[in-house]
């Protein structure tokens, strides 16, 4: 739909027959899944423009993974001290509260959407979002005429021997612990992996009182040199980098580039990490290993877009500069499926500022309004920056060289690398799905969120987009009580 036409969802929603699942009687103009930066920006903008919005989010409070709140009982006085751009969040959170009071936004916190399906009863099309609400996992169905998926991302993990030891945490997880609980993962924390988040995490940990003996970065920051134009167009991002860099200097933290933690040691808990130099393809260079004592290890390799709701709807994906799969989106933030928009990390990892811009643009598109040129330029600038960063931190193919055959790659099902290698070499598994079928890697509770990237690398293929028709575990009684539609076949 062109911005000049008026694609605004019709406001004459017919009352729905009660389906006994706690659904509201009429369809919202827009359902937004995810209340992180993108979803929050989209919801408040859409409500500003007169749409009736339902905002669903698994968290108890808006902000998503990025804007995390200390638990109220901690009585933190300045949560913003740990955040960049808290003001951007605070103003939108305020607008959210105003719209909620005015009845323009229905905010369903603690709602985990497990699937979105199309209902074609009327020509305009309508979507049903099935969710589990609260700890009791009550079934809720939300109806909407348009859907914005702002489901964010999760952390990319590349396993290494010893990564299952207590004390080894995700870098994003360490940051989250700090923001939400003001808790440190240890007193002496090695921060490792790849990507700009590592600098932020190290800075936060040091500021909160931990010793950080080293930040171990697998990429080489000289990799940025070839992409300077994108960096220079993003002065704010450079300043952010300078702040992190400054924090490292201030706290006396060593930055080891082109290095990786190739093993964690310890019995009941991590006691040390072995760090080795990497060649251009991220293969550990023999003879360069050294041990760094620590009582915690915060590791992460950037983020992976969380796409299962979108792929479940058939939305097209692409491989981005950082090697992950993301949604194909047009300049209106539309997916390849009519009626489904997306914003934020789902379109390619790009950070909170880009997510805010995209959320606002998506909302304007859904409301049939023109897109402000300044915001569009801002999006291109930030996207170019994200691509440059993504390319610099894309894992090299040689990283699997630090996996020994007995390293568990899939933690849920305890599948070691050797078993996966056997499935690939001897049994004809040429992709991640077949590895899963033959080894159970990725079949456990996390459904491959933790090991998916590693399994794909071992199978020698690019990681495919998330495919999880159920985005979270769903009690059978909830499925059994879904509204009947009396057969689906044509």
């Amino acid at each position, binding site marked *: 739909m062109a911005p000049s036409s008026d694609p605004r969802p019709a406001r004459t929603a017919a009352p729905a027959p009660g389906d006994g699942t706690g659904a509201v009687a009429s369809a919202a103009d827009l359902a937004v899944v995810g209340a992180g930066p993108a979803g929050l920006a989209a919801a408040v903008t859409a409500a500003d423009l007169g749409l009736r919005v339902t905002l669903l989010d698994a968290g108890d409070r808006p902000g998503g993974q990025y804007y995390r709140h200390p638990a109220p009982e901690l009585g933190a006085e300045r949560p913003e001290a740990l955040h960049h751009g808290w003001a951007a969040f605070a103003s939108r959170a305020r607008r959210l509260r105003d719209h909620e009071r005015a009845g323009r936004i229905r905010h369903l916190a603690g709602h985990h959407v497990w699937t979105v399906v199309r209902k074609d009863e009327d020509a305009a099309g309508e979507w*049903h979002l099935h969710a589990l609400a609260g700890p009791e996992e009550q079934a809720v169905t939300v109806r909407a005429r348009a859907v914005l998926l702002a489901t964010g991302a999760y952390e990319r993990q590349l396993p290494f021997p010893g990564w299952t030891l207590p004390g080894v945490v995700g870098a994003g997880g360490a940051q989250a612990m700090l923001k939400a609980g003001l808790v440190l993962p240890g007193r002496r924390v090695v921060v490792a992996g790849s990507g700009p988040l590592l600098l932020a995490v190290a800075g936060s940990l040091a500021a909160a009182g931990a010793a950080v003996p080293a930040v171990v970065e697998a990429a080489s920051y000289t990799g940025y040199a070839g992409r300077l134009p994108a960096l220079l167009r993003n002065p704010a991002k450079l300043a952010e980098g300078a702040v992190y860099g400054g924090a490292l200097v201030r706290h006396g933290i060593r930055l080891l580039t082109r290095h990786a933690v190739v093993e964690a040691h310890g019995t009941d808990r991590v006691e040390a990490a072995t760090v080795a130099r990497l060649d251009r393809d991220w293969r550990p260079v023999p003879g360069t290993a050294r041990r760094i004592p620590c009582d915690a290890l915060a590791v992460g390799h950037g983020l992976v877009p969380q796409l299962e709701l979108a792929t479940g709807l058939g939305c097209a994906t692409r491989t981005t500069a950082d090697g992950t799969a993301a949604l194909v989106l047009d300049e209106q933030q539309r997916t390849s499926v009519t009626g489904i928009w997306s914003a934020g990390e789902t379109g390619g990892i790009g950070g909170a500022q880009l997510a805010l811009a995209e959320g606002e643009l998506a909302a304007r598109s859904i409301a049939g309004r023109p897109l402000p040129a300044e915001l569009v330029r801002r999006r291109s600038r930030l996207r170019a920056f994200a691509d440059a960063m993504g390319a610099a931190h894309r894992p090299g193919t040689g990283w699997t060289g630090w996996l020994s055959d007995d390293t568990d790659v899939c933690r849920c*099902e305890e599948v070691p690398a050797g078993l996966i290698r056997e499935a690939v070499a001897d049994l004809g598994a040429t992709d991640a*799905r077949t590895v899963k079928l033959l080894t*159970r890697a990725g079949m456990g*509770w996390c459904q491959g969120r933790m090991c998916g990237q590693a399994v794909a690398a071992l199978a020698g293929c690019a990681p495919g987009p998330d495919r999880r028709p159920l985005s979270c*575990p769903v009690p*059978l*009684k909830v*499925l059994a009580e879904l509204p009947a539609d009396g057969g689906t076949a044509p």
Partner: protein
Amino acid sequence: MPNRHSPDVVIIGAGVVGAACAYYAARAGLSVTVVDRGPVAGGTTGAGEGNLLVSDKEAGPELDLALLSTRLWRELATELPPETEYEPKGGLVVAPDETTLKALRTFAEGQRAAGVDAREIAPDDLPALEPHLAAGFAGGFHYPQDAQVQPAQAAARLLHASGAATRLGEEVTALLTGPDGTVRGVRTTRGEIAARAVVNAAGTWGGRIAELAGVRLPVLPRRGFVLVTEPLPRLVRHKVYAADYIADVASDSAALQSSAVVEGTPGGPVLIGATRERVGFDRSLSTEALRRLAGQAAALFPVLGEVRALRTYHGFRPYLPDHLPAVGPDPRAPGLFHACGHEGAGIGLAPATGLLLADVLTGARPALDLAPFRPERFGDGTTSHAANGAGA
């Protein structure tokens, strides 16, 4: 064309049927190459539950095939590695009321005459077989011959054991023919493979291979969803289903049919499958299918209502209009052999199919009459069943 590097047989399809054909052909002394556009078990096999059932088949040619397969699977279980997860766990079919039980009794009598071991279980004896089964069933039948394998493992291990050359990720784009029109190999995206014989084990996509030879084989996709629960201690001991499943399997209707078959797995999760509907290759999630599977599973085992589904998957069964597979030579295209169209029973029927096809390829007398499975039985006309063939 054929040279000393050419295999005797090229098999198209690395699913369980292609793998079984490779296994028995190699055992009969033939050299074999298996080609697949995807990985091993990448089509319907990988989306299967691994059912080796005699219980759901009425007396007739398919049951004969299933009984032969049952014997062969028992042998294979000793030859293939334990990862194949062969479990002769037996099936339990329960009847909700007296009328269904009576029908089931008649059905079982026919099966017994064909060699099936079917034992009627009185309502009071059901809990001994399945302690968590809901109360109130009129009775049931126990089928000790029903068994289970892990389907992807079964295909991969059969293929590995066959010693066949495998060319995965290579799609067949044409069939090679000799001067007299005889099929003499395949052309793929990476080159040509000459061979004396070509086997079409392309499953749901078998109709397309037939088309390459200019013959018609109306294989259609019949979609099924399976629900997988969280890992559980052993709650379900057999393959358990309600008697109406049998009617669904044999149904010609395009509409969604479902009657849950519930079973445990060595890995812990309970599998609940599977729906049947003809909707072409539609990959979108049907919440209606999940609703029915979950409801029916909980009706059989109330304890499952409180359990969570971790995932669901779907597959497309290769279905021929008369519900029987195509097995044997195609007189319309000499040199081409078919082994496809096994609908939802491919895992179970694979060994018998492979053995019979190896017999045909080596000129031995097949252990079963292949007449009911003749590939040319649907004719070359463009008759009724093509109507639903979205993409077949």
